[in-house]
């Protein structure tokens, strides 16, 4: 139920308002004034926001605007899940952070900034990866989940837990100049169950087919636009106003300014796929589920590669980066950028006991291995798991 305030009976005039505002203190009334005078939000909506509990998974490009605006909007309890630390290459779009937070956990840096933005809300930092082991505990504590992650295993995991625990979630994703957005697993006011992520995409793509921002690039403003649209859906859902973006997916193109809505149907078979592992989600490996439709590629961890290099094993290292994110490189690596690979295939040795491809994050190097002609697809070709990012992390230990 939404209270309608007319301009003639301004909500801030008179003691009646203060009495009925019950759980909003004087400072909050000032803080949320521009919300309180909106007929669609008003006191009822603001109290609903204060009571609401929202979990934001991912405090990166999408997560930053979502966190800032939901904190400003007065969502009473906000959980922030992200295992990563702030890096310099985050800052051009993750504007919640600055140089002084580089190296800090994003979840913790975000809480420190947001409690200054709005001291009247509860913020909880979870500097950990959301996994089948912790997702149930985390998600069950909140009313709404926001998917602001950067990988498919986590997107399917969030979907499956939200379906199992009957929570709506707002999904956003970005690639270069385009974004996608939808409110999924929502129950409408007639009690009808709406589509889920698996109804939209029943089968996941292989990671190297749908790379993330660190591989493909992204214009800095794009997560700002899509993240704010996600925050707007959260607010509408909580306040019960407007039309929730459910049963539809919105596509935005920053180059043409085209915004298109596509309607989607709930697919019960796909929904059941989400529930097939419930409640024993721990036994389900989302990583391999998201790469199972592709031929397996040999992977080598930073630890194992380090050991082999120390033992002076004959290893050829191929660096496929074009514009490196990290200045460091592995010793004696041959540099063959992905886009020049075909022309430089002859530089890849067939005699070394091991050929290890690497890049910044271990995704473009998989693409490179898949581009090798058949006679090169030897048993001794490996991908450095997690790329230089993982290698450098290991080195710091």
């Amino acid at each position, binding site marked *: 139920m939404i209270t309608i305030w007319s301009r003639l009976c301004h909500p801030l005039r008179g003691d009646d308002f203060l009495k009925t505002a019950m759980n909003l203190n004087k400072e909050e009334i000032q803080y949320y004034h521009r919300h309180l005078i909106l007929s669609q939000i008003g006191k009822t909506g603001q109290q609903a926001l204060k009571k609401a509990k929202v979990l934001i998974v*991912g405090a*990166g*490009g*999408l*997560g930053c605007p979502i966190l800032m605006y939901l904190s400003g909007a007065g969502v009473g309890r906000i959980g922030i899940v992200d295992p990563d630390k702030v890096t310099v290459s985050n800052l051009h779009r993750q504007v919640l952070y600055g140089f002084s937070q580089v190296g800090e956990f994003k979840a913790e840096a975000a809480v420190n900034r947001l409690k200054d933005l709005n001291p009247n809300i509860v913020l909880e930092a979870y500097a950990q990866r959301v996994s089948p082991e912790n997702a149930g505990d985390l998600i069950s504590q909140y009313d709404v989940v926001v*998917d*602001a*992650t*950067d*990988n*498919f295993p986590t*997107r399917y995991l969030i979907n499956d837990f939200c379906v199992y625990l009957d929570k709506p979630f707002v999904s*956003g*994703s*970005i*690639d270069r100049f*385009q*974004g*996608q957005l939808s409110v999924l697993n929502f129950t409408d006011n007639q009690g009808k169950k709406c589509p889920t992520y698996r109804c*939209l*995409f029943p*089968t*996941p*793509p*292989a*990671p190297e*087919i*749908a*790379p*993330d*921002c660190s591989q*493909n690039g*992204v214009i800095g403003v794009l*997560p700002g636009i899509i993240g704010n649209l996600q925050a707007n859906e959260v607010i509408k859902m909580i306040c019960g106003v407007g039309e929730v973006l459910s049963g539809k*997916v919105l*596509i935005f193109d920053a180059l043409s300014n085209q915004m*298109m*809505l*596509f*309607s*989607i*149907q709930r697919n019960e078979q796909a929904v059941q796929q989400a529930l097939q592992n419930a409640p024993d989600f721990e036994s389900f490996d989302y990583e391999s589920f998201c790469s199972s439709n592709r031929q397996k590629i040999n992977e080598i961890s930073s630890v194992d590669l380090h050991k082999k290099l120390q033992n002076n094993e004959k290893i050829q290292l191929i660096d496929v980066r074009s514009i490196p994110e990290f200045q460091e490189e592995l010793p004696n690596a041959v540099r063959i950028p992905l886009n020049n690979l075909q022309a430089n295939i002859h530089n890849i040795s067939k005699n070394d006991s091991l050929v290890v491809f690497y890049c910044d994050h271990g995704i473009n190097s998989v693409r490179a291995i898949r581009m090798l002609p058949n006679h090169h697809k030897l048993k001794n070709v490996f991908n450095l798991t997690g790329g230089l990012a993982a290698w450098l992390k290991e080195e710091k230990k």
Partner: protein
Amino acid sequence: MLTIQDTDNMADLKSKLIISYPDLKDYTFRMAVNQQMVEDNHLLFDNDLVAVMPPFAGG
């Protein structure tokens, strides 16, 4: 804008697209006709507007 003739349903269109764009066969994508997501057995008619939508990973 791409004009395709003699195409019956989405599965048919998909296989024709893969002939013109071989890389598509490795991709996961959904197709929409006139802004409605459809399955492979959906029939196509003259002047239908078809959109191809891959999932995005980035966040």
